[in-house]
């Protein structure tokens, strides 16, 4: 049995205006929860889009669960990897349960209705992320935090082994950020779902992920535990600002404090 969820070998990708990823090697084991960090434009989203097969042309190999994504049909990829994108919207008129149901698309047969199992999975995932009571509500009427949970439920309804998230906590208040990350941690532990999430907030990434991958200019510059990746030198050079790193007073995980440049403190 294959134990590798994602394996990338020397992956290079460029849009028409220049290279975005350079010689990326990345190996994620099944059941891992990995945070992808790095400044804007470092290539986090591109990496996620490559792994999910949205971007096709590239150099190097990407394997999901031992299979080369280039040989797979979209339907097959959608049974391997689910994605929570950075931006998500549906036209007005969609109920929450109808949005979550769309997660069962990879299992649909043209003339058949959703099976009893499809309905069970949808119910279970809605309850698992705590949106069961919103089932009949209109998606467009929900708050940002509720919406993000609906999108997460839809992705989970795909029943994949791998979940990719592109800044799942952006635009949420701190309580919803923590709620989403607690949910992810819980699903990762209970179901062994492999998670790769691009994260903006370094301190939350440090608190919730055992492994962080730091991207800068399209290359992996650090990969390891938060203690190894979140250092003054690494973060300072990746984000080009002076920072101070100190352990969290209660939990001990590294926390990044920003030093406003030219404030006379350094």
């Amino acid at each position, binding site marked *: 049995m294959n134990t590798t969820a994602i394996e990338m070998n020397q992956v290079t990708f460029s849009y028409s205006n220049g290279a975005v990823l350079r010689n990326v090697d990345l190996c994620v084991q099944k059941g891992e929860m990995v945070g992808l960090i790095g400044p804007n434009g470092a290539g986090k989203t591109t990496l996620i889009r490559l792994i999910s097969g949205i971007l096709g042309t590239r150099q190097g190999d990407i394997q999901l669960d031992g299979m080369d994504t280039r040989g797979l049909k979209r*339907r097959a990829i959608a049974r391997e990897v689910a994605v929570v994108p950075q931006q998500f919207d549906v036209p007005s008129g969609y*109920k929450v349960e*109808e949005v979550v149901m769309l997660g069962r698309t990879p299992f649909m047969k043209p003339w058949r209705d959703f099976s009893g199992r499809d309905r069970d999975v949808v119910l279970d995932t809605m*309850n698992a992320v705590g949106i069961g009571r919103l*089932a009949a509500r209109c998606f467009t009427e929900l708050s940002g935090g509720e919406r993000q949970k609906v999108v997460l439920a839809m992705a989970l309804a*795909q029943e994949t082994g791998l979940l990719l998230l592109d800044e799942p906590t952006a635009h949420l208040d701190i309580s919803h950020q923590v709620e989403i990350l607690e949910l992810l941690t819980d699903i990762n532990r209970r179901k062994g779902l492999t998670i790769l999430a691009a994260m903006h907030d370094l301190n939350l990434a440090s608190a919730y992920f055992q492994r962080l991958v730091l991207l800068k200019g399209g290359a992996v510059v650090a990969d390891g535990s938060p203690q190894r990746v979140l250092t003054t030198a690494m973060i300072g050079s990746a984000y080009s600002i002076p920072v101070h790193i100190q352990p969290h007073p209660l939990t001990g995980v590294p926390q990044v404090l920003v030093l406003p440049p030219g404030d006379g403190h350094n």
Partner: protein
Amino acid sequence: MVALTRRRRPITIIVLLLLALVACATMATALGAVSVSFSDVLKIFWNKASPFNFSTTWPHGSETIILQLRLPRVIGAALVGAGLATAGVLFQGLLRNPMADPYIIGTSAGAALGATIAMLLPLSMAFLGFGMVPVLAFAGALATVFLVYYLARVGSKTPVVSMLLAGFVVSAMLTALMFLVITMSDKLYDKFHSVYSFLMGGISVAGWGQVAVIGPIVVVGILLARLWAFRLNAFALGEEGAAHVGVDVEQSKTVFLALGSVLTAAAVSIGGLIGFVGLVVPHALRLVLGPDHRLLVPCSAIAGGAFLVIADMLARTVHPPREIPVGILTALIGAPVFIYLLRRHGKEYAL
């Protein structure tokens, strides 16, 4: 634990709509310049369809009028309405735009130019029992869609915005060309009435020949649209979102565009340019039935058929002996309905 909302039974809704369509069609067959009673129409149908016959109590001519003139026209109207409404569902779902209609990517302008050119040709030319007007309208509609699709292509993708822009520009150019041809040709200047009635829309079906060609195209088109409706549902997530849940986006887009264009072209070839059916019918049903295309596709097809059967009946009977262009009636009925929906469900359109 919360249960999923119980859905309305799709089959019940479809059967009810079909019954309504049959009722509309029977009524439309009975009404016309020569009045035939409702029960006589049913008896004529029955005599034709079964071995047991009612005794003939109606004038002999009635049977010919019903079976050879009115019924093919009513069925033609139903096919046009069904084709336009289905194309409307496809384009609205694909482009995620409730305002999209079957003409949005240039079909109408292409069809109109094709029809105009056909009117310049000798009258004797024909193809599969059709005059050249429907044939060239069909060809013009399809050719325009492929031109727009080709122009809008960026690399291996066809972004929706560039398709709408290309459709708008190509339409504007073809419309200008059409009016240039009309103005410069003495022949067309005299035949302005034919051009006018094509542009305003009107069911032109004489006998069963055209129905036999258009019928299978429209029915197969609707069935294919229903078959792939679950993929159309995924397009609600946007193109990248649809890909995430396992839809081959570029392939599906090509299939849906081709399907919608063929349906529109088939409708245009015997109905001219009839607006509002493809816009209002799917739109109204979406508000009532919800966004699931597996239900919307068949329901829009049937309701669109019934709508146009009624509109065509009114077109024939409101102001005899003159026929009102059916496109005028669909606009006069459709626009107020649309405005009503817009006012009533206004908040759902606000972003």
